[in-house]
């Protein structure tokens, strides 16, 4: 293809977008609305997922060591904990470290309890290989020697795990369904805009245009419609997400929970929406004109 032909195709597609004003507008709106839906749902569900994982990971078993335990007893306890089935890691946190955590989270006022005034226990933080095994492991830990107390979310945690599993699956299904709907809707709208120009394509073929000569401007036009259509929801979602992220993260400060940070999540989402727009736009128009090219 000669360079001036490339230039011609690009100029032609821009001209066509302007000359088909209303059709272009319809197609762009269709792309914008569907991608806004898809993008918002993805952002929402991915964050729900993230919070779910945060909650699950937050669930660990805290085994408080009896104050009477000597160092040897403590080491024996650690070994038995590590020996339990489904235990992934056992981390020791001395009462001093525990106090530091408390001071870190709740402020210097707790500094009063420094040294011998420290009311806290030494703690083993036990993480299970999967969150669902928490209850079982906690029960077994309670029976070991020198265990003062075992803490975990209990039945609340169990329920949580179940709900989270469902939320995750439903989320994936909804996203997949939405993406399919978007593909279908966008491709269809573009097909309608092209259908109104089938005589044009027929004439092009009759004067000896090759299929690709006809296809290129349509392809570029479709890609442009997809791109412009995607830019609208991308700006809306970016704005809302950045604002929402700051606000919500303020509430969540000091907890284990966090939303997905805009970098890289928002950047990836934007890239995905733009590529969906461009790819579906150009493929949609390429597929739609195929039928009319057979003259």
């Amino acid at each position, binding site marked *: 293809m000669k360079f*001036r*032909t490339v230039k011609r195709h690009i100029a032609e597609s821009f001209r066509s977008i302007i000359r088909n004003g209303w059709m272009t507008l319809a197609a762009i709106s269709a792309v914008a609305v569907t991608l806004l839906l898809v993008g918002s749902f993805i952002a929402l569900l991915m964050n729900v997922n993230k919070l779910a994982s945060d909650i699950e990971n937050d669930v660990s078993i805290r085994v408080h060591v009896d104050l009477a335990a000597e160092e040897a007893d403590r080491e024996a306890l650690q070994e038995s904990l590590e020996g339990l089935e489904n235990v992934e890691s056992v981390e020791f946190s001395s009462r001093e470290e525990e106090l530091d955590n408390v001071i870190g989270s709740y402020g210097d006022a707790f500094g009063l309890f420094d040294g011998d005034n420290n009311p806290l226990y030494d703690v083993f933080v036990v993480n299970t290989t999967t969150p669902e095994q928490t209850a079982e492991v906690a029960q077994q830990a309670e029976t070991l020697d020198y265990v003062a107390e075992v803490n975990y979310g209990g039945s609340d945690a169990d329920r949580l795990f179940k709900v989270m599993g469902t939320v995750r699956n439903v989320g994936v299904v909804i996203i997949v369904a939405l993406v399919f709907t978007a593909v279908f809707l966008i491709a269809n709208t573009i097909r309608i805009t092209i259908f109104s120009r089938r005589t044009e394509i027929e004439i*092009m073929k*009759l004067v000896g245009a090759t*299929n690709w000569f006809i296809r290129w401007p349509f392809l570029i036009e479709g890609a442009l419609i997809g791109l412009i259509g995607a830019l609208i929801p991308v700006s809306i979602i970016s704005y809302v997400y950045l604002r929402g992220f700051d606000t919500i993260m303020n509430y969540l400060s000091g907890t284990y929970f966090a939303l997905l940070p805009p970098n890289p999540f928002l950047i990836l989402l934007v890239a995905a929406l733009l590529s969906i727009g461009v790819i579906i736009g150009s493929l949609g128009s390429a597929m739609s004109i195929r039928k009319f090219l057979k003259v």
Partner: protein
Amino acid sequence: MIEMSNVYKKYSNGITAINGLDVRIEQGEFVYVVGPSGAGKSTFIKMIYREEVPTKGTVKVGEFDLVNLKPKKIPFLRRHVGVVFQDFKLLPRLTVYENVAYAMQVLEKNPKQIQKRVLEVLDLVGLKHKVRMFPNELSGGEQQRIAIARAIANMPRVLIADEPTGNLDPETAWGIMDLLEEINNQGTTIIMATHNSEIVNRVRHRVLAVENGRIARDQEEGEYGYEV
């Protein structure tokens, strides 16, 4: 130049449009294709620019074997075969100039060359002064002249005209005939399907009468031969 031998065309709906047709048309001829509606005229014409492919037999246009022509090569055939229709088939959103230029842009000719040739053919059809207008601003006769200008822009060896005067008043029709004569004089083969007995009888050329999917009459300087 154009050669059809033992050609059959049966459509998927069971209608046999062409039924053992043989014909040979030399370069530079002017040929009328006449015959009753539904006799196979249109199919015959369409097989020359490969809108239809015969079910059986051979069709050759220049060096192109149309039966075995790959779809990819069709555009290259059509650059040698200009086509003019009863309903003009101009691109409604392009100006007169752009309509004619389009046929040349397709061949990736350089813009200087395109401009020169477009103005040249528009001059030939007598509409050089209307380059900036859109098809719907022109009369039927003018639109047909533009269509002819487009069809000959790439200097095809064959110009097919399918009822080119069908939608035009008699006076305008004669203007179109003069134009086709002039193009023919420059060496282009012209194949014109028509129902216009007056034209056929007054401007004598070879007449091919298609009936029941065959050439029923092939006559040099023939008459129209049907009751009007």
